[in-house]
């Protein structure tokens, strides 16, 4: 056992000596290996230095373009159209800015900008300029979005440049991609040319407006209107449906698409063609002869947006109006809050003169069965109502009204009031007549609403309450 123990002791000592020599060597290798395994350097400069360089680089690039930068900015994907801006970045954080947002923004005005570090390098328009009008809680035209303005942003995160040198930004709050392209010498004056086109779009010469698609003899029409002031168009195609066993044409619920202005016309985000195809980024030029915006598609089809001078779907509300079982009279009320927007300014301007001669309350009634018009107040020679016989003629798709003399001597209009009255009654009895449309129950009242639109001048329309 003793021999065995001595032998074991010698082996243990030898192992201790071996460990005493090997372990230090291993430790040195370990220490050295740790050093060699250092993380490879990704950046050659500290973060703050790189950040400063990025800021300076963007600032220099922004200032480098002689005529500045231009962009089309669509603040909300589904709720607005496009607004155009031109920026000229000067030294000392001054920027000159112009826009086609409004007539007041078409020339360059100075404000301040800054380039700073946010979640990435950020361009911020730091004092008020045209772009801030998109973020004005006091101007919130989008339905149901009180306080949201046009949902615009004026701080842009920098995401680099394209091969063509365009800047890629994303809006800070809403993450909308915005591309800045190099402006040219004409970019600012182009804003005025662009802005001139908004009036051609919004200043309707008719209450009937259509997007018309034609290819040869095939023509399809959709109605369009501007539902709220955020550069959007509502398009409602005509579809066929069966009502009470009869095939009739009605307007589809439709869709909203954004539009932007160009020096030659407008462009739309997208439209749905008659065959169901969707066409995107569609540019229309204004055609002076037709007074419409026109585009030609690759297959030769032609699209036109503008006024029509007759209803897209024929109307026959006069039949209901003239039916003794259905109608007693219709009542027009001047500046009626419920019918605002249906009566056009062109008609209101004419009726305002009638109001001025003593028609009070400011209204008139057209009796369909007794066939006369009654204007209350003091405009007659007897200081009472003016009443005149009318004759109605159903022309199929419109009505023609003719006058047939005052109902009695006391109802004759005073000579001093004759001019205003004659203008009004001559309009109402224009030989070309009126399109009559039954809109159904369209207000908070249970009465049906009927509109009368002048055939001769379809910018003139008045809306009435129907009484059975």
């Amino acid at each position, binding site marked *: 056992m003793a021999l065995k123990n001595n032998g074991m002791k010698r082996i243990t*000592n030898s192992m201790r000596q071996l460990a*005493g020599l090997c372990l*230090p060597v291993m430790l*040195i290798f370990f220490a050295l290996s740790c050093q060699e395994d250092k993380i490879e350097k990704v950046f050659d400069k500290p973060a703050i230095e790189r950040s400063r360089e990025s800021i300076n680089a963007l600032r220099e690039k922004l200032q480098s373009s002689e005529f500045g930068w231009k962009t089309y900015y669509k603040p909300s994907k589904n709720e607005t159209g496009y607004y155009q801006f031109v920026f000229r970045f000067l030294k*000392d954080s001054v920027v000159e800015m112009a826009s086609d947002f409004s007539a007041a923004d078409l020339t360059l005005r100075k404000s301040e900008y800054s380039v700073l570090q946010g979640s990435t390098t950020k361009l911020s328009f730091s004092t*008020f300029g045209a772009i*801030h009008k998109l973020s004005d809680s*006091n101007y919130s035209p989008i339905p149901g979005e*009180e306080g949201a303005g046009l949902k615009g942003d004026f701080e842009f995160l920098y995401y680099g440049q394209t091969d063509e040198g365009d800047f890629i930004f994303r809006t800070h*709050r809403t993450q909308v991609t915005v591309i800045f392209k190099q402006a040219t010498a004409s970019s600012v004056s182009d804003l005025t040319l662009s802005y001139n086109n908004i009036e051609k779009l919004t200043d309707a010469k008719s209450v009937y407006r259509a997007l018309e698609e034609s290819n040869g003899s095939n023509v399809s029409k959709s109605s369009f209107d501007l539902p709220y002031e955020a550069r959007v168009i509502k398009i409602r195609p005509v579809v066929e449906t069966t009502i009470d066993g009869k095939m009739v044409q009605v307007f589809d619920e439709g869709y909203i698409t954004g539009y932007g202005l160009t020096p030659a016309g407008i462009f739309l985000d997208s439209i749905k063609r008659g065959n169901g195809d969707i066409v995107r980024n569609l540019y229309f030029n204004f055609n002076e002869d037709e007074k419409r915006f026109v585009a030609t598609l690759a297959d030769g089809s032609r699209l036109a947006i503008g006024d029509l001078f007759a209803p897209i779907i024929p109307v026959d509300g006069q039949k209901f109006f003239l039916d003794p079982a259905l109608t007693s009279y219709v009542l027009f009320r001047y500046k009626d809050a419920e019918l605002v927007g249906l009566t056009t300014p062109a008609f209101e301007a004419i009726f305002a003169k009638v109001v001025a001669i003593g028609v009070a309350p400011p209204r008139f009634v057209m009796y369909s069965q007794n066939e006369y018009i009654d204007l209350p107040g003091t405009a007659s020679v007897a200081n009472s109502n003016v009443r005149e016989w009318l004759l109605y003629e159903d022309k199929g798709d419109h009505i023609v009204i003719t006058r047939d003399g005052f109902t009695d001597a006391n109802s004759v209009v005073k000579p001093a009031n004759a001019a205003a009255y004659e203008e009004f009654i001559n309009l109402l009895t224009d030989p070309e007549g009126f399109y009559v449309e039954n809109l159904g129950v369209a207000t908070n009242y249970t009465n049906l609403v009927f509109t009368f639109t002048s055939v001769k001048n379809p910018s003139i329309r008045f809306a009435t309450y129907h009484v059975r």
Partner: protein
Amino acid sequence: MNTINNTLRIWITVVILAFLIAGCSDDDKVSPGSNLDTTPPVRNQLDTWIYDNFTKPYNIEVIYRWSESLIDQNRFLYPPTLDSIQPALNVVKKLWIEPYSSVAEQGYPYIIQKTAPRQIVLVGGRNVNQSGTITLGLAETGKRIILFEIDLLDKGDKPSIIQFIHTIQHEYVHILNQTKPFDEETYGQITPEGYTAQWYNETTEGSREEGFITAYSRASEGEDFAEMASTMLEMSRSEWDDLIDSIPEPGASKIRQKEQIVVDYYKSEYNIDLYELQETVNQAMLKLL
């Protein structure tokens, strides 16, 4: 024992050596100097005016350039137009800072330096809430006042100035209250039933008949107190008395009770005669117009 000691010595030497080798490695070089940009910002003419009239004498920083961290990002607001800033700040100085400073000079010297917000943040447009109501100003923890509608101020139009200065006076009353609280419990007992979160559905006339100086007074006791003081400070004392005398009872009496508490608070906490302050602001308004 010797063997163990020798081994231990070798170990210690090797560990030190290993750390020395590792420590001597070619590590990152420390950048020379500071990387922080300490260059003072370039001041334009407006910045200099602000420094001379607000920052230096009253220790108030005025922020007019957009700063995302200071404004609610869920709101659609924008910074003011450069041209509108100095006229608006001049109204602030003439109708708020200078009257308070002069009236409190004896009783509570340096009141503005001691109690005024350290930051005034200016916003150009109107702050419309989703409910359709409008927020004219905000006071945040007594350190910052945010003033909206800077671009909408018409300095030649008294109602426009009154609305603007009402906002500042109102928010400053909040700050005074945050510095030295008023007796909310006693105050709240005067018209305990009239406070409502739907204050915006109430009319001014109806509110006065119930003992509230404005409809917004009905929001809470704190807002009521601030509305009382700020409404008093937008007219002369005789105009104030005429106004209260025209209100049917019991509204007038209740407003008079509130007035007494407000006046006592100013005197006891800040040694300010509120009626004297009212007249000073009124005179300054007449000069400004």
